[in-house]
């Protein structure tokens, strides 16, 4: 299967945005981690992908396949790689203002109120204080936290903390929102709610979103396209377009098109490493 899939992963293959110029372009991206005793681990091997303006793209794959490495490179947290990565046409080597990141843990500063946490990037980047404050208020109400501005992270639930983290990632108005299993630490019910809200936030803010997840259902529910990764070395084996109308509700789970897409991705992943995946729902 690899020969066919490798061809699909090349530029010009299926791995193209549906419309517009690519906002994120990744060409021949490889990453090798040096290990102890001089060994080297090939984490990523010749990754190619393009993400268009306003697109919602997910990357799914088994644990340890290198999906987080892809995100950390896009976030500017890993600067030594081979290949080309560009955001908004600019080659990326290090942090970029065009990018906002939400991690698996909210990583809020416990000594700052929700509002002050959202304002943290504005302080780092030296944005106009008054405008940033107004925008932070808007973002907090967009993520459904109006009235919680003065609460400390310790007084918020896990879902609320992650909402603050999303608002914080958007405060400097980046072109791209990167999400690294943002709801992985939440319980299933909260996770469903957060996914519905994330879809709404992505639609309202018109941001380009790149989501890392190991939940196939989550990826299909949210995305325009799903990139399927396999491990050792990490590479993209298939790109699955999701042709489901928007806005999508949670009842889409019983839709046949949804089920067929989920099944297709599951088969792709099971052929690779069946045991690395949770069996139901995710």
């Amino acid at each position, binding site marked *: 299967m690899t020969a066919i899939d490798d061809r699909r992963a090349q530029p010009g293959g299926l791995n193209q945005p549906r419309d517009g110029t690519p906002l994120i372009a990744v060409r021949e991206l490889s990453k090798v981690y040096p290990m102890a005793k001089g060994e080297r681990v090939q984490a990523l091997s010749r990754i190619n992908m393009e993400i268009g303006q306003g697109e919602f793209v997910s990357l799914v794959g088994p644990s340890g396949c290198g999906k987080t490495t892809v995100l950390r490179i896009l976030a500017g947290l890993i600067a030594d790689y081979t290949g080309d990565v560009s955001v908004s046409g600019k080659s990326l080597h290090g942090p970029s*203002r065009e990018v906002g990141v939400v991690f698996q843990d909210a990583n809020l500063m416990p000594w700052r109120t929700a509002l002050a946490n959202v304002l943290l990037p504005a302080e780092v980047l030296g944005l106009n204080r008054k405008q940033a404050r107004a925008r932070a208020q808007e973002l907090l109400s967009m993520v459904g936290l109006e009235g919680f501005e003065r609460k400390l992270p310790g007084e918020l639930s896990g879902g609320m903390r992650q909402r603050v983290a999303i608002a914080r990632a958007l405060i400097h108005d980046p072109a791209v929102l990167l999400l690294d299993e943002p709801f992985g630490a939440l319980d299933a019910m909260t996770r469903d709610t957060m996914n519905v809200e994330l879809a709404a936030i992505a639609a309202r803010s018109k941001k380009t979103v790149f989501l890392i997840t190991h939940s196939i259902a989550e990826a299909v529910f949210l995305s325009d396209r799903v990139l399927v990764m396999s491990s050792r070395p990490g590479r993209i084996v298939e790109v699955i377009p999701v042709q489901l109308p928007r806005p999508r509700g949670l009842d889409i789970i019983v839709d046949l098109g949804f089920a067929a897409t989920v099944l297709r991705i599951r088969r792709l992943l099971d052929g690779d490493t069946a045991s690395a995946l949770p069996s139901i729902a995710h």
Partner: protein
Amino acid sequence: MSREARGMMSREARRLRLKRAARRCFAALWPPLAFGALVLGGWEAGARWGGLDPMMLPAPSEIAEQFQLGFASGLYPQHLGVTLLQAMIGFGIAICAGVGIGALISAVPLVERTLNPFLIAFEAMPKIAMAPLVIVWFGYGIWSKVVLAAAIAFFPVLVSTILGLRACEPGRLDVLRCLGASRAQVFRLVRLPSALPFIFSGINVAVVFVLLGAIVGEFVGAKAGLGTLILAANENLETARVFSILALLAGMGMLLHFGVTALRQRLLFWAGPQAGPPTA
């Protein structure tokens, strides 16, 4: 319901709340109070009728009298002021140096590798042994005591600062790093606040150590201070007086400790009371 009735209700409720608070307070305080009273009572009885040597263990009443006398004559406040001043200046120096050098060590690996063996050697040495030398260097005035107090209190602050700066959650650092924050920004916005619970546990130890340093310095050579008063009273075999000064020092130490705890609660409102490593 009439306004009067509501007023009655709230008065009744307030009375109940007060009563409950008083009961809680009593529940917390009675064991130590009872124990203290028992020990003091037994001690007093032993001194009066049990034939305790007043040179060894003078009666609590006598100690209390000395205490009162010392304050009435203005002698204790004057010397207490000197000791406290020395301790507080030393405290300030220990905190600034401990946090500053700790920050430098955790920021620059070369500094850590260079200083580490010397710091370990200096820490292993009993700082009190330097007292005579420090008196020779800095004289009989307050500065020799300040230096001793600072030298002893410096290490707990340094060690807790290094530990705290190291313990910063990597996820919090990632948040700033992916914004391209400068090292100074990372330190100010994440590392230092994250380390504060640790630093405070060091400061809690330091506040007791500075009193120790000041008193030892005064023992070795000083013109004024509670340490000199203890030495003088001891030479005159005024044991009750020595005890009264010890009681004063214990009270002083406790007040300083509570001061640090209160400051901690103000600054670390976001951290639980047990955050950071346990105080040594």
